[in-house]
């Protein structure tokens, strides 16, 4: 009997070892451990055993059952893992295939740069003022200390609608309109972004372009404050290492006036192709608001001072992205627009 059981165990073990499919395993389970299975059948012969042998053989039967069961379980786990491994192997994909295409639109680079400029000044407590693109001669020139026949009018060749109405040549008229609206509240602290128009058309000039103008009026505003605000802007826009320098200039609506250069973002100031070897790149015009302009805006030019600055969004965008011809910005070729 013991020998039979030992042989049965060996036979079962051998059979389990040979199995390669889960179904086969079930058949073996039935064959050996089922109600009519071989081990169960051997139990029936227990009656023939003596009372002393019965528990011992019974134990052997249980051991054999445990061995077979654990072997079956182990085999089952082995087969399950093998089957899983094989399934996963079959499911392998080429991960280098392109991903699903999401059709994404692009905001025009000028809009993006304008928003970035706005964001920097919003962070410094400026609000955004707007004004008409078709302006009166008064707001575009006269209120800005540029009377009729002033030679400075030549700096800005204008498009006229009538003798008194023109396409604004800068966003500066918004300064006056904003001051008129705000007076006498202080401080005045705003930027005016928008389209402007001048009679120019080449690789570095477009008859329509975008400006962002800035204006601060309060008690005790100085040229040093202007430098501080512009340095902060230059660093946020072009990198924390940037320096600025002011060159004396002339605008009828500011006095003193200055062109502002930023240290070259490409070479860091040592001189390269972009900065034409000078280490500096001109980015905007600025100055202390001319007393006449403060008066035109309704503010007291004895008590208050202010500064103003104006930059071309195109210029900033061209520097930021390395665009070498302004006409790209208005050609609207999809292959250009899709790069931003």
């Amino acid at each position, binding site marked *: 009997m013991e020998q039979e059981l030992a042989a049965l165990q060996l036979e079962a073990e051998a059979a389990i070892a040979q199995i390669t499919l889960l179904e086969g395993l079930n058949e073996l389970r039935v064959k050996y451990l089922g109600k009519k299975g071989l081990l169960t059948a051997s139990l029936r012969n227990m009656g023939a055993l003596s009372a002393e042998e019965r528990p011992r053989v019974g134990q052997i039967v249980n051991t054999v059952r445990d061995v077979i069961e654990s072997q079956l379980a182990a085999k089952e786990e082995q087969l399950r893992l093998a089957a899983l491994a094989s399934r996963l192997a079959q499911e392998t994909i080429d991960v280098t*295939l392109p991903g*699903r*295409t999401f*059709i*994404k*639109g692009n*905001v*025009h680079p000028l*809009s993006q740069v304008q*928003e970035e400029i*706005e964001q920097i000044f*919003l962070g410094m*407590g400026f*609000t*955004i003022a707007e004004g*008409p*693109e*078709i*302006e009166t001669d008064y707001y575009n020139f006269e209120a800005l200390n540029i009377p009729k*026949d*002033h*030679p*400075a009018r030549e*700096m800005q060749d204008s*498009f*006229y609608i*009538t003798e008194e*109405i023109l*396409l604004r040549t800068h966003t500066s008229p918004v300064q006056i309109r904003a001051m008129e609206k705000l007076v006498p509240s202080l*401080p005045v*602290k705003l930027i005016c972004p928008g*389209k402007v128009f001048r*009679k120019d058309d080449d690789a570095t000039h477009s*008859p*329509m372009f975008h400006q962002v103008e800035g204006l*601060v009026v*309060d008690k*005790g505003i*100085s*040229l*040093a*404050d202007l*430098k*501080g*605000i512009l340095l*902060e802007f230059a660093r946020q826009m072009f990198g924390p290492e940037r320096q600025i*320098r002011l*060159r*004396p*200039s*002339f605008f009828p609506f500011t*006095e*003193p006036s200055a062109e502002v250069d930023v240290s070259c973002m490409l070479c860091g100031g040592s001189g390269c192709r972009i900065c034409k070897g000078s280490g500096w790149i001109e980015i905007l015009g600025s100055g202390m608001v*001319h007393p006449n302009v403060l008066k035109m805006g309704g503010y007291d030019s004895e008590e208050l*001072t202010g500064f103003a600055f104006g930059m071309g969004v195109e210029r900033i965008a061209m520097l930021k992205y390395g665009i070498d011809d302004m006409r790209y*910005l208005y050609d*609207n*070729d*999809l292959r250009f*627009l899709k790069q931003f």
Partner: protein
Amino acid sequence: MRVAYKWLKELVDVSLPPEELAEKMTMAGIAVEKVENLAQSLDRVCVGQITGMEHHPDADKLWICQVDVGTETRQIVTGAQNVQTGDKLPVAMDGAHLPNGVEIKPAKLRGVPSNGMLCSTGELNLDPQDWSERSQNGILILPEDAQVGQPFAEYLGVDEYVLELELYPNRADCLGMINVAREVAAIAGGALHLPAWANGIEPQLPAGEVATKVTIATPALCRRYAAMLIEDVKIGESPLWMKQRLTAAGMRPISNLVDITNYVMLEMGQPLHAFDVAKLAGNQIIVRPAQPGETIVTLDNVTRTLDAEMLVIADQDSPVAIAGVMGGLNSEVTADTRSILIESAHFLGSSVRRTSRKLGLRSEASQRFEKGVNAANLVAVLGRVATLVEQLGIGRAVGPVLDSYPEPLAPVALELHTAKVNALLGLNLKDEQIESTLARLDFAMHWAEAGKLVVQIPPYRADLVVEVDLIEEVARLHGFDKIGTTLPRGVTTLGKRSREQGLKLAAKKSMAASGFTEVINFSFSSPKALERLKLVEEHIWRRQIKVLNPLRDELSVMRTTLLPGLLETAARNVSRRNLDLTLFEQGYVYLPTDPQMLSLPDEIYEIAGLACGTVPKTWNQAQVTQDFFFVKGALQSLFTDLGINNYSFISVKDIPFMHPGRTANIMIRGKVAGFMGELHPEVVEAYALPGNTYVFVLDGPALFAAAEGKVKFSPVPRFPAVTRDIALLVDETVTVEKIYRSIRKVGKELLREVRLFDVYQGQQVPKGKKSLAFTLNYQSGERTLTDEEVTKLHETIKATLDKEFGAELRQ
């Protein structure tokens, strides 16, 4: 203004090399655009002399020349036939880069080595007219006195640097060398060496018979008119030094007398004009407005028709010059002229500008008048002319100088407060620092009291008018770089966008998220931009505002809608084979408020877009062709993003450029806020677009008014939803909108969602019918719905659809 460096050094001690001086001037407000080395292209070119010549053995037309270049004798092969032994000529040696771009290298010509090149006027960019007869066809033959071995630039007197100033309109004073020297002295600190006449000292002339009578008829346009008589005039050529300086300054030498007037203009900034006294009828100079239609033949031999706004110099009969712009041929100085009247005048800048613009005539003189000349100095300038006339032996200046100056300008003094200087600049200068800074400009000044300086403004600095102008002088001479950086102190301000600014930005981001790419077109367009849209005559878009002086016709009217710009941009892209386009633009359009344009137009914000072509097939996605519903979906997204709820799309058939069956008006709060749909096939063809094209145009203000932007929380449902489908067959004319409304009306609040998931026409669907399939989602916020109540509600909906649309239900 071109400032010759050697010339400048005669007027002021300058120790800085040209480039460094330029940098310093720029940083102090006199911008130097570039520094030009006039001799650069003549480097390695020198005066040589032919010491021997023989024929080339293998080429009839070539000569082998031995050329003495001072240090050595070089063999040079030339094809020129105008040279002979003994001639002196310019020789370019190897390494030279000639002005015409030619680079000289040692070479062999037909086997014979040639070490250099003999140059023609053309190769050196010289005007052949200035050189001898023999130089006209071939090599430039130099005069006998040329020194063999001398660098050719030195020979020409062009071993010179020129600083090209880019002057701001307020610094017209620097259009003369004297005032440039004053600036350089203030900026770089050298001593000035100015002659007396530069400081306004007027000449003592020997008395002569000056019979000319000067009358200023319009003092408003001519502040001062001075004139000086020169007798026994001998017209000829100017000396070389004067020619060289004129050339360096960018002017052409003409004749000794004209050259003097130009030379003095370059020195003092004061334009001068010379009349032949014998040709002045009645010996009269009358400064008066032109009579309308009056004509004059100007020095360039063009007949000019004048109008009453133009100022002329006339004799008793007719104009002899257009004031400040150009002289007349009738009073021109010629070789026979014996007596000359030199005019030194102040004409109103704006008047000269208007005239020179109208006539299309701009000159060195007119530019100086436009920007303003120094009326105080006119007679002193004539004294300078007298000196030169005598020095060059051209004639004899005689007095008295005619001088008509009805209202002399009063001297200007400005107060400057130390406290204001420091407050405006953010500096902390002491009185004496401010004084020593301004003293560099050589202004007379004195302290009225501590902290209050009174500064006498010299007449040549007409740009200094108010106190801040002087503060700017302090700032630029002290150095902008010495001013610190601070941030404004004071009340904290909030930086934020207005509601509308936020919505405009949100709209851009929404459109981009839906796959549309933003374009920016010009705000002006061609008057023909609307031609292809088949608009009726009275359409509002036809009210285009015209630009009086457009750059070109295609940019001559202000846009009244963004649509044509988008269509043109699409057409341009398509012509470059960018066929799949989804574009949008946001911006203002302009409509007149008044036909005479007496008031500003309305500027209306518009949002418009266009889609055509396909989304191309990829390995795992089928090609998608753009259609009506793509654009509609994008707009629905836009409305969601802007917080607009109350909108609908209603079929519209009468927009002439749109497909009548595939266009909808967009209704917001019951009003038309725009339209969208398929472009009319004829318009598609007119713009040569590749196929069906979909567009939309939205009115910004209507959108922004309806944008509530409010998000309100509603509880997440806790009870299960029950889903039931309905498939039905209806007439193809029944709109889905109607069926939706009907389903919702019955379903009420228990019907959480209705979604159309299939529309079918074709096989198994009778003609004139369409099959629609909806999924209905029932859910209650308070309890789990029972199967019976859902079934009952669903059946009621079906029955209603059957009743209202004769809908045949399908299983």
